[in-house]
Every structure is written in C-alpha cells, then in structure tokens.
C-alpha cells in the first residue's frame, strides 16, 4: 500500500507557515530546557544519596524536592505551546501517529498526574518519608522516563508514514515503533541531555546563592558541573550513534534541509564542547549560556530532520493558507501583557526588601 494515500488532508493555516514554525521551534526549545531540568534534577535527587550520608546530601535533595513541583508545572505548560503549533503544521501526521499508539499516548496524562503529585509529596513530606524517599524519587524518574519514551515513539511514528500500514495488521491503538533504528539512540540522547542539564541547573542555583553571599552550597556547584560534564561526554557517543542510524536523506548536504541540519548539528556540538570546558572551570553562567545555545541548535536540527523525513510526502510550503493575521497580532499583545505581568510579579516578590 502506498503510505501517501493514508495521509489525511491538512486544514488551512491562518498565517504563513514560517511564523508557526518559528513559534514551534522557540516553544519546543523552552519545553526541552524545562523538561531537561525536571528529569535531570530528579535523577540527581535519586543518585545523590548514594554518594554520601543524608547529613551531606540531604540539603541538596531537599532543595531539589522544593523546586520539582514548580519545574514540573512549567515543563507541562511549556509543552502545551509546541504541541499546539505542531498540530497546526503537522496535524495530519501527528493525529495519525497519536491514534496508532492511542493507549500509550493517553496513558501519559495519568502518568503525569501521578508524577506531579509524587513530586509534591516529595516536597511537602520530605522529612516524614525516610527510606521511602529513594523509592519515591525512583518512581518519579521512572515515570518521567516512560513519558519521554512514549513521546519519542509518537515523534518517530509521526515522521514515518511507511510504518502506518501496521494499523491494518492489528494492534490498533497499541503500537510502539521499535523497528525504527533511531528510536533508542534518540531516546537515550534526550535522557543523557536531561541528566546533563539537570546537573547544570543545580550548579546555577547554588552559584546564584553564592553570588548573593551564601557560600554554604559551594560544593554543589562543582557537583552539578561534574554531572553536566560526565553526562554530556556520555552523550557524545550516543549522539554519534543516533547520527549513524539516521537515514542518509536526513543529512544529505545537497538539500537545503540537509545543509541546515548539518550546520545546526555541528553548531550544537561545538557549543556543547565549549560549555563543558566552561563547566569544568566552574564558570557556571557562561557554561549555561553555551549549553542553552547547544540545546537551541539541537532543537533546530530536530526540526530539520523532521522536514527531511516528511519531504517525500509533504512540504510546509504546500499547506493551504486562509489568511487571517489579526488573531496573531492579538496573540502577540497577550504575550507582551502576560510577560509584563510575570516580570512585575517576580520582581515584586523576589526583590521585596521586607514584610510590610
């Protein structure tokens, strides 16, 4: 069967695809950063007690626990926007892949609710948990990893319409995509990246405190930087594995998408190397800047790979457009107003001098 027959007809988009792709890329980047901090710091909270007695590692774990629910809230929130823009641009692929793995896809909601409440329990009942604490952090990490695995599967099925024909041989709603050779390295690439960024987030937090005159957490700056360095170094071979199993058309330098992918990939690689060097010198803020750059370039690379994968079937420029720009302008006004309010609230609370 010709898979192109199965691809649903897209609905018209209201503005030029470039605006939507831009918003998709930016919001995916924000989501990935938040997701990395969430999963990575949860991994550190799980592993840290193994490195020493509770008197030593307890303050770090408690601090991570305090922040986890908030990071989780923003991870979910920042996930909503890219999911929206993904549906607008690639809905015909995304809805199909979601239905093919519907059981797992819908399970994500239940898993996230359990994880979120587990994060709150870890935060609010930290002292009472005792030995159960490690089990709880283990469960949080496991659940987040499972959610990430389901997401990787959906993205994999979405961009490979030739795999869709399995629908006709049964297993409706319960398909995973193990036959995609990129699935496992892609998934591991994300996990290693999350662990690295989680470590760096810890270093940033304690660096910020140090700059405010609280030097009690100085050892965690080095600790977080080490997590970042080791996980990033582990991620290099995983990344090359991922690159090695990508089909040649994805990085074909004769196509525009292939060229842009190559530039983004090597740009990301270079920035990751610089960020590791900075982290090893414990220059935390520059390391963060370079690491964010690396993640942004990797986000771009990811978009170009998707475009290359779907190229035989679909091009963004082919999407029908029914122009209506005024709603986009209203959205931008909302964005500015909401951003202003957020800035005012954060400034008011965190720069408050005293209780009045």
């Amino acid at each position, binding site marked *: 069967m010709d898979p192109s027959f199965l691809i649903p007809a897209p*609905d018209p988009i209201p503005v030029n695809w470039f605006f939507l792709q831009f918003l998709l890329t930016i919001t995916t980047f924000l989501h990935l950063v938040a997701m990395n901090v969430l999963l990575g710091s949860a991994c550190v909270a799980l592993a840290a007690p193994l490195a020493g007695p509770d008197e030593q590692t307890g303050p770090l774990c408690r601090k991570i626990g305090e922040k986890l629910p908030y990071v989780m809230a923003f991870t*979910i929130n920042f996930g909503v926007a890219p999911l929206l823009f993904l549906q607008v641009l690639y809905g015909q692929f995304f809805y*199909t892949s979601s239905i093919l793995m519907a059981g797992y896809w819908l399970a994500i*909601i239940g898993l996230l609710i359990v994880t979120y409440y587990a994060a709150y329990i870890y935060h609010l009942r930290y002292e009472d948990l005792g030995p159960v604490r490690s089990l709880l952090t283990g469960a949080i990490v496991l659940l987040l990893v499972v959610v990430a695995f389901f997401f990787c599967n959906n993205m994999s099925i979405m961009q490979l319409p030739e795999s869709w024909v399995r629908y006709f041989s049964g297993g409706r709603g319960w398909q995973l995509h193990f036959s995609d050779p990129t699935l496992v390295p892609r998934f591991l690439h994300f996990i290693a990246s999350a662990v690295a960024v989680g470590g760096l987030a810890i270093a940033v937090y304690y660096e910020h405190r140090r700059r405010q005159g609280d030097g009690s957490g100085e050892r965690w700056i080095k600790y977080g930087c080490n997590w970042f360095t080791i996980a990033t170094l582990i991620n290099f071979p995983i990344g090359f594995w991922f690159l090695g199993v990508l089909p040649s058309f994805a990085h074909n330098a004769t196509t525009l998408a292939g060229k842009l992918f190559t530039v983004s990939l090597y740009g990301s690689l270079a920035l990751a190397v610089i960020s590791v060097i900075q982290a090893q010198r414990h220059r935390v803020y520059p390391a963060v800047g370079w690491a964010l750059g690396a993640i942004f370039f990797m986000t771009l690379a990811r978009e170009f790979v998707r475009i290359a994968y779907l190229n035989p079937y679909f091009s963004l420029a082919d999407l029908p457009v029914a122009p209506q720009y005024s*709603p986009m302008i209203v959205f931008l006004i909302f964005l500015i107003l*909401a951003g202003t309010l957020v800035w005012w609230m954060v400034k008011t609370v965190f720069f*408050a001098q005293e209780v009045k």
Partner: protein
Amino acid sequence: MNYPVWQLDFAGGGLLIAVMAILHVYVSHFAVGGGLFLVLTEHKGIRENNPAILAYVQRHTKFFMLLTMVFGSLTGVGIWFTISLLNPAATSVLIHNFVFAWAAEWTLFVAEIVAIFLYYYSFGRISSRQHLIIGWIYFACAWLSLFVINGIIDFMLTPGSWLENGSFWSGLFNPTFWPALFFRTFLAVMIAGLFGFMTATAQKEPGLRHNLVRFCALWLLAPFVFLLASAWWYRAALPPQLEAMVFDRIPGLQGYMRAFIVCSPLLILGGLLMAVRTPSAVRRSLAVVMLIVGLIYIGAFEFIREGGRKPYIIQNYMYANSLLKEELPAVQQVGILKSARWAHLRKVEEDKLGVAGQEIFNLTCLSCHSIGGPLRDMRKRSAQLSIKGLEFVISAMGEKLPYMPPFAGTDEEKEALIFFLHRSLLNQPQAND
C-alpha cells in the same frame, strides 16, 4: 473518514471524553471562581483584621493549588489528547481556526501559574496590597482563559456566521458566546463556594468555621438567580431549530435535563442548611454531598450542551462521525469504504459482510455508540431490533431521527452494517426477520 479509528468498543461512544471533560470542567471552573474567592476572602480577613481568616486563605490556597494546578491542568491537556484521538478531524478544525486563541490562552496560563505560585509563596513576605494585586492578576488571567475557551466551546454549538465567512472573530464571538460566558462565570463563583465548604468545615476553631461556612454559603447562593437568568438568556440565544432539538427532540438529553433541574433546588437547600449552625460532623458530611451534587449539576449541563450539538460535532459543518456536511452527498454516492482513507476493505464482499459491517460501524457509529459499554450501547440496542427495525432506523437517520447523522453509505454498505449489528455483534448464527 480521514483518520484511523481507535477501536474502543466498551469505552466507545465518547465515554473517555465524558469522564475526562466533566472532571476537568468542574475543577477548571473552580480554578476561575476559586481565584476570586481567594482574593475576596483575603480582603475580608484584612477588613475584619482577622489573622485567622488570613491563615485560612493560605491553607485554602495550598488546597486550591494542588487541585487546580495538578489535576486541573493535566485533565485540561487530557481533554486535548482525548479529543484528538477520538475525533481528530474536529480537533484539527478547532486547532487550525483558533490557533492564536489557544496560543493567547497559553500566555494567560503561564501568567496564572506564576501568579498562583507567587501568591502562595509570598504570604507575609510582601505588603498586603501587593499580595492582593497578585491574587487579582491570577483571577483576571483565569477568567480571561475562560473567556477564550468559552468562545471555542460555544463555536461548536453555534458557529453562527463563521459558516459563511470563515472568520476567526465570527467563530469566537458566536451567537451564544456572551450568555455562555455569564453562565459559566456565575457557575464558577458557585463552585468556589462548594469547594470552599470543604476547607471551611475542616477549620478547628468553631467561630472561624461558622464565619467561613456562612461566607461560602453566600458564594453559592448569591449568584444563583443570575445563573438562572443567564441560563434563560443562553436558551434564548439558541437558533429556534437548535433549541427545539435540545429541549424536545433528543430523547437522551431528557435525563440530564431532569438532573439539572433537580440539582438546582438541592444546591439552594444545601446552601441554606450550611448557613445554619449545625454540628461539625453534619456540616462536613453535607459539604461532601454538596460537592457531589455540584459535580452532577455541571456534568448534566455539559452533557446537555454536548448532546445538543447532535447530529453534529460542529453545528451544520461536521457530523459527529467527522464527516463534513458538504461531503455527505459525494460519500453517499461512492460509499464509505471507498471514501475512507483508513478502511481495511474498499468494497463490500459477500463473504466478508461482517468485517465490512464492522468497518462501517467503526467509521460512522463508534463516535457515539459503544459496544457493551455504558454510553449508547449498540449491542443492547441491536438486540431490541429486528433486521427490519434496523433497516428502518438506518434509513430514518438524519430525518425522522434528526439527532443522528444521515447514513453515509451505499445500499450494500447498509446491508453489511445490518449484518454486523444483527449477526456478528449479537453472535447470531441465523438472521432473524
């Protein structure tokens, strides 16, 4: 017809979305009304110079945050996930037409999260005035979220002139936008009172408890007359044909209508009882009962609103089974199996009647009917009908049975569907005329 089908059988007929949506709608209305409750209760505490009330606001904020931020947010995402699995074509229409409304709502969601976290975090850390402003920002953003989402939800019921001009603004500010917005706002305020009972009745100090419970009763009772007025306005805003369909012609909605009507005086009575000084255990139990009555109340309303769209999912545009109204004649001519992209069979074959029938059922009936499940069970209905009865029902769809989409298939496909419903589904070896 454009997408594959998630064959749910027992959970078919929209059970998943019903469960997810009702729970979410209840909590999300609390997220709006509860925001107003927080700031006005804080104002009360400041006005009465009562630190106990302010301490209560802090405790209630924690409860509010844990419920709305976790369960409310995720079931909201869950609705999105569920509708895209059960009716991707309609979801795609909503997403593509209103992408920037959703995006604007997302910016409000960001501000809501920051506001409620900071509101909770900053008790006693900043001035009362600043704290209240953050509370008001939360409420304003939450209500504006309702404003946006309300437009999209009611677009599905009354798309108005969008059907002719395709304009975003016509779709958003559709004929039932304003009455629905007022109705939901008053409902949100009442729900804030219902959830307020839960925390107020848990207060240990009797004086504080009584003060707060009476305050919550006011939240439940005061908006009630406005709720009824906006419900009347909502009904009046419906196009006459749609009004007749909702209130007279769809048999399945009468039960929800009765539940809504019965729960109204129950809420009033419960609110009055709560305001009277009764033993703590009685009040606590009554608070739980009231919360359940509130869930039934909003659940009944949502069932009426959702059911009122039938046979469409987007009124006069797309049928509940995802078939576009304008595509119906063409599909009827060539058949369902040839028109659907994701059909196993392309034509009805004599030796595969049951398979073809099931395929047609999945493509055109499963969105409203379950097989052996609690919602519009087709096995039960088929068992009550003979072959001739089934033939009559299928032919009457869209006309004598106006709440069902017209059957989109050919005569052979109708025969295959009847074979599936009468033979395969009921496991009958012989046809029974």
